[in-house]
């Protein structure tokens, strides 16, 4: 290497470091890839929040669904709650896992804030959460019509995240499910449709 060029070595190293550090700014060190992606959702046998009836996996699987892990002690869950409700109104099929919570308080919360869930599964001891690999709330699992986990989102779902990242995944689930409901539903939960509702 020519001596002249050698002088630029520190600058080159600096540039490389700058690029890596800049990339690091937008990475979330807490984010973990889910080990369950492309694997069947774990079986469970747990009570339903509304009436205590036993629910099993077969009760919820059959069409694409979101499985949202929530609890009354989880502040961020309160933040994402109104948006979940809008998604539900837009036709997104959402089930809840009431994770390590007091059922009484959970029912009161849904009475007060509204209930976006088809049903909520009571996971008081966190066993289903463990099987799913939940490490905090809120977390949302995208499960296809065959009961296979396709995506896991950690953290609050809001309009920006839904429209940029999650809506396409949901649309894929709908498209690949091939169920009769998919035709009608495909038109509903687009980001644009739900976003407009927000503006009014």
């Amino acid at each position, binding site marked *: 290497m020519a001596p002249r060029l050698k002088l630029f070595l520190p600058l080159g190293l600096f540039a490389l470091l700058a690029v890596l550090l800049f990339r690091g700014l937008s990475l979330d*060190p*807490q984010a*973990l*890839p*889910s*080990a*369950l992606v492309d*694997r069947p959702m774990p079986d469970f046998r747990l009570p339903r929040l509304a009436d205590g009836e036993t629910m099993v996996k077969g009760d919820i699987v059959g069409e694409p669904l979101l499985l949202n892990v929530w609890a009354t002690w989880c502040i961020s869950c309160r933040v994402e709650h109104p948006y979940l409700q809008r998604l539900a109104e837009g036709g997104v099929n959402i089930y809840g896992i009431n994770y*390590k919570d007091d059922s009484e308080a959970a029912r009161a919360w849904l009475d007060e804030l509204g209930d976006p869930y088809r049903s909520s599964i009571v996971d008081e001891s*966190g066993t289903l*959460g*463990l*099987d*799913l*690999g*939940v*490490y*905090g709330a809120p977390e949302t699992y995208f499960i296809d019509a065959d009961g296979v986990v396709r995506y896991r989102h950690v953290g609050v779902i809001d309009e920006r995240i839904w429209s940029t990242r999650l809506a396409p995944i949901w649309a894929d689930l709908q498209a690949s499910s091939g169920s009769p409901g998919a035709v009608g539903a495909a038109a509903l939960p687009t980001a644009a449709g739900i976003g407009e509702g927000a503006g009014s």
Partner: protein
Amino acid sequence: MNLVVSAIAGARRHALRIVATGLFLLGLPALAVIETYEFSDPELERRYHQLSQELRCPKCQNQNIADSNAPISQDLRKLLYERLESGASDAEILDDMVGRYGEFVRYRPAAEGATLWLWLAPLLLLASGALLLFVLLRRGRGEAAPPVSDAERERLEAMLAVREGDTGP
């Protein structure tokens, strides 16, 4: 004089005792949150400690589940205890945990796929460092001083002759 000294020493000892007691009381809640399990076999207990040291808390990412008080770690410890008591092998338990939380939960990930780099990177770094050192040292030896010419040798000898004639110390 002696009396004063011993009085001061006594007061200090007293103060130390209060501080020690305070520290002890402060430590109590920390001890209380780590639950205890009764093992049917001391061997299981040994494996429990070993595995809980090796499993990483998914929430508080730089602690193992033995050190962490996060609820998720408590759950994982409970699960670990139950699996051990049900007779599962270490490999089965680790596979189980990895199945839920990915290779991330192991402080000693399997040496395959993406985690292979974790194992190889230190070796690669060491090797490249050794190579660099080798190259630099080789180059230094290659650049031997240019041979001394006859004229230079004469000058040198003249200088040395003067030096030997010196009477200085």
